[in-house]
C-alpha cells in the first residue's frame, strides 16, 4: 500500500512540476486510457471528418450528389504508416485534401532533451529506418561543430562509405515501394533483394541491419571488418547491372509511364512558395543541387 502511494506521489510530482499542468494523471492512472463517456457533437465531427472547412468554389455543372467527403486512414494500405486524409471527391477527381499528420508523432525532440551527447545517435537513428546512418551523421557533425572536435581521417572515410551504401539501399526501397504502389509488383521483390546485399554489409560492420548507432560524435563505433574490400567490390559489381535492368523494365513500360506522366505537376513557383527542394525542384525544371551549389 505504502509503495503505491510513493508511485502516486512520483507521478503527481512529474505532472504538477510543469507549469503547464501536463497531462491529466487521473484519467491515465495505472495506464488505462479512459474513453470519454460522452462525446460532444464537435468531438464526433472531428473524428468522423466532417469538419473540413468548405472554401472551394464549385463549377455550376456539378451537382451535390457528385461531391463527397471521405475519411481515408489513419490506417490505410497505401500510406506506409499512419496518416489520415480528409479527402473531398467529385466523382473520381480529388478536389481537396486535408492531411492530419499527428499520428506518427513520437516526441523525439523531447526525448533528446534528456540524453547525453553520446546517447544522441541512439535516438536520432530511429527517426528514419531506411537511412538511419544519415541521421546519426547529421547529429554527430552538429555535436562536433559545437564542441570543436576533430575527427580522424579514416573515420571520415568510413562515414562516407557507409552513408553512400545506405543511400543506395534507401533509394532501392523507394523504387521498390514506389513500384509496388504503381502496380509494378516485381520491382518490389527486386528492390528488396538488392537492398539485402547492402544490409548484409552494414550488419557485418556495425552489428545491426538498421538503427546502427555506428556513427558517433568523434568518429565511428568500430573499424571496418576484415576483407571489406571484397564485399564492396561485389556490391559495386552487382548493383549497376541490376539498375540498368530496372531502368529498361520501368522506363519503357507504358503502364508506368501512363500512371506517372502529367500527374501531380508542380511548377517552379509552387516549389518556391512551399519550400520544396531536392529532386522535386529539379524535376520542375530548375537547376539546383545542394551537393554542387553548397558543398
Amino acid at each position, binding site marked *: 500500500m505504502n509503495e503505491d502511494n510513493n*508511485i502516486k506521489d*512520483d*507521478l503527481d510530482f*512529474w*505532472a504538477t*512540476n*510543469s*507549469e*503547464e*499542468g*501536463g*497531462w*491529466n*494523471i487521473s484519467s*491515465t*492512472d*495505472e*495506464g*488505462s486510457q479512459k474513453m470519454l463517456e460522452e462525446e460532444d457533437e464537435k*468531438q464526433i465531427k*472531428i473524428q468522423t471528418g466532417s469538419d473540413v*472547412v468548405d472554401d472551394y468554389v464549385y463549377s455550376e455543372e456539378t451537382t451535390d450528389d457528385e461531391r463527397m467527403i471521405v475519411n481515408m486512414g489513419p490506417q490505410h494500405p497505401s500510406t506506409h504508416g499512419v496518416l489520415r486524409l480528409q479527402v473531398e471527391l467529385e466523382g473520381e477527381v480529388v478536389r481537396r485534401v486535408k492531411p492530419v*499528420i*499527428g499520428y506518427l*508523432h513520437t*516526441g523525439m*525532440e*523531447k*526525448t533528446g*532533451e*534528456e540524453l547525453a551527447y553520446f546517447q544522441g545517435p541512439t535516438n536520432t537513428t530511429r527517426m528514419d529506418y531506411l537511412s538511419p546512418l544519415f541521421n546519426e551523421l547529421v547529429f554527430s557533425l552538429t555535436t562536433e561543430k559545437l564542441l570543436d572536435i576533430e575527427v580522424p581521417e579514416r573515420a571520415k572515410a568510413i562515414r562516407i562509405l557507409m552513408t553512400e551504401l545506405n543511400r543506395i539501399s534507401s533509394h532501392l526501397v523507394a523504387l521498390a515501394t514506389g513500384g509496388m504502389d504503381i502496380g509494378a509488383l516485381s520491382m518490389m521483390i527486386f528492390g528488396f533483394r538488392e537492398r539485402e546485399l547492402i544490409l548484409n554489409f552494414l550488419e557485418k560492420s556495425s552489428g545491426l541491419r538498421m538503427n546502427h548507432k555506428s556513427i558517433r560524435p568523434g568518429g565511428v563505433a568500430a573499424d571496418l571488418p576484415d576483407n571489406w574490400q571484397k564485399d564492396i567490390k561485389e556490391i559495386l559489381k552487382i548493383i549497376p547491372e541490376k539498375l540498368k535492368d530496372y531502368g529498361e523494365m520501368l522506363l519503357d513500360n507504358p503502364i508506368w509511364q501512363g500512371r506517372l506522366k502529367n500527374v501531380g505537376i508542380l511548377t517552379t513557383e509552387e516549389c*518556391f*512558395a*512551399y*519550400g*520544396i*527542394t531536392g529532386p522535386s525542384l529539379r524535376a520542375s525544371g*530548375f537547376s*539546383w543541387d545542394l551537393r554542387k*551549389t*553548397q558543398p
Partner: protein
Amino acid sequence: MSLDEINVEIDQYFKTVEDYKKDGYEMMIDLTAVDWYRKKEPRFEVIVNLLSVSKNSRLIMNVPVPDEDLTIPSICEIYPGANFYEREVFDMFGIKFENHPELTRILMPDDWTGNPLRKDYGSGRIPVQFKNAPKVD
C-alpha cells in the same frame, strides 16, 4: 555560399520578411522556436530560415517574442509553406500567430493540455501499464 544571421524586432518582423522575399529570398526552409527558460529574456525566440537560390545564400532570422503577449504575425501570406511550421510552433511552444488561416494543433491531439517542447514541461513520466511487476512472496 553565404550565411547571414540577423536579429529582428517583432514589430519589424513581417515587413522584413516581405522585403527579403522581394530581395530574392524565394524559399522559406524552416521556421522554429527556442525556449530560453530562465536563461534569457524574453523567453521565446522564433527562428526563420530563408534560402535564396538565385544568390546562393541563406539567412537566419531571430525574432524575440515578448513574454506578456506570446503573439507574432503569421508569414503565411508571404510564404504559403510556413503554414504547417507555424502550426507546429503553436502546438509545441504555445506561440500564437496572427492572421494564420487555421491555427490548430498539428501533432498533438486536439484536447491536449500544455505545450510539450517548453522546457518546464516534464518529459517521459507517463504511467505505463505493467511497469511494476507484482511482488511474489
